[in-house]
């Protein structure tokens, strides 16, 4: 079995590696936060990931949520000092969770569970307690591409996909615009049935052929404001 350890504390990584070594399990690699974990999963294709919860940049719960988008996501065991409650709300995609310091017999139990189970890919599962993700995640040719939320300029819905337009390009994600609007209510503004724009990307309004368009920093695209959303959009822009 191929194992990845994700923890922001070097000594915590070291201890888990020691314990796994005692069980004859080799550690393929380590990562110090959720974002690195996703990169390492793409690179090392581990069968099993030990994931800490509280980490900088991207926490373990969010990383788990993104990993589920993979066709064959690695099996997941959460490992935490004191977050059981958060885990109970989010245990669907994990095989097991361990509390730190981890006991050897408890680890053995988790490993044998991991051998029996094969995780299934699925749709993203919302985070507990209405927490916001720090990244959006797209599946590009079987790999996951992460877009930091602060880089997102606007979200544009077409058919069943949403195009994420961000500072380095565009990707398609498979999430309803409505859910995105609710999750990131403080960051994006609905301007049309099919579009959300990032508040900090708004550069102003243009009028053209009877249409009102939003100008955006970081892209030449201008997006149409619907008649219905125009009063709110005006009010928000005034308040910026």
């Amino acid at each position, binding site marked *: 079995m191929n194992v990845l350890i994700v923890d922001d504390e070097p*000594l915590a990584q070291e201890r888990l590696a020691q314990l796994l070594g005692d069980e004859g399990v080799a550690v393929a690699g380590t990562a110090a936060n959720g974002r690195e974990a996703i990169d390492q999963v793409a690179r090392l294709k581990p069968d099993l990931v030990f994931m800490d919860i509280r980490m900088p940049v991207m926490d373990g719960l969010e990383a788990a949520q993104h990993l589920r988008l993979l066709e064959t996501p690695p099996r997941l065991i959460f490992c935490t000092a004191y977050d059981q409650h958060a885990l109970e709300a989010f245990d669907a995609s994990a095989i097991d969770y361990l509390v730190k*310091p981890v006991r050897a017999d408890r680890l053995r139990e988790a490993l044998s569970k991991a051998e029996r189970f094969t995780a299934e890919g699925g749709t993203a599962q919302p985070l507990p307690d209405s927490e916001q993700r720090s990244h959006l995640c797209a599946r590009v040719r079987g790999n996951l591409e992460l877009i930091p939320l602060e880089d997102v300029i606007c979200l544009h819905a077409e058919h069943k996909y949403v195009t994420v337009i961000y500072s380095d390009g565009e990707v398609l994600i498979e999430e309803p615009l409505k859910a995105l609007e609710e999750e990131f209510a403080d960051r994006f503004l609905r301007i049309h049935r099919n579009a959300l724009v990032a508040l900090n990307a708004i550069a102003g309004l243009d009028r053209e052929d009877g249409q009102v368009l939003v100008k955006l920093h970081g892209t030449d695209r201008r997006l149409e404001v619907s008649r219905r959303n125009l009063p709110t959009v005006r009010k928000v822009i005034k308040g910026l």
Partner: protein
Amino acid sequence: MSRSVSESRKAPDPAPGRWFPNFCRTDVVFSLVVLGELVVLIMWLAPGRDGLSLRDLAVSSLFGQWLVLLCAVALCSLRPLLNRLPVLKGSVVAYLCILLLVAGGTAVAVSAERFAGFQLTSTDTSLARYVTNSVILAALVAAAALRYYYIQQQWRAGVEASSEAQVRALQARIRPHFLFNSMNTIASLIRTRPKVAEEAVLNLSDLFRAALSRSEESASLAAELTLCRRYMEIEQLRLGDRLAVNWDIDTLPGRETLPPLLLQPLFENAIYHGIQPRTEGGTVEVTGGRDGQRWWITLRNPMIAGARKPGNQIALNNIRQRLTHHFGEGATLAVQETVDQFQVTVSVPLGVAL
């Protein structure tokens, strides 16, 4: 793309939002009634009056209690509003409100009585004279009373804060996360570096001994700083190269006293809200010294831009209340915040522990 906002502000008054005494409480209203009666009695006994008539006493009492209860009702219902104002502004508003009520209350009572023709008040004195007299009297009594109730309120808040601090000693002061992560660190070190593991166990024991001690009695500043160093040593093990600490506190007067674990939460805040959320970590700068008749200590740490957590504020308010409780109004906690820097300074007058 993101706008940069630079913000630097002085810390607000201690315990904003609940400084105004609660005039809705029965015990407070009762003490007001007693106070009102006392003033009436003093007036009644005051020399210069011809004979002590019980009828006069009864009339004055009735009149006095009418005014006292009127003010109590008004201050009780105004409390949520007053609590939102800063202490000085709110006190002035409350004071003016009392004077206005007394003027109005007197005018209403005297006119009503004259209209009914009970002949309780002497008709030689004009209505205006009655009103002026009671307003002057109320101005003196209300000033003293407001100050008294304010101090009592502060004292109560101080007691609550310090007992809360004890209850939270294990939960918030030393967070469960900290305990279990430290245990995990030690478990990891035991195999590879038993000497360091031993040191960590000793440090952790010292911290818990302080956190579990039930006394709020003063410890020396030197002892408190040692505890802070022990705490930072444990965090250093946990965070590795991500944490650097610069100490420049040699001129702090170590024999000054302060309640135990007053400063440690500042270090914990710097770690949990400053260093830990950053992948690259950062440096906590600790400076301190004497400045005239005060000693001060400042902690500065980097922050992820825009990431402010409410937990930080709770801890700071708690420290602020404990400071006021132990050193009176002279001790301060000031926060200076920019987008990516957080700085907190505690400054305490020399030798004034209450």
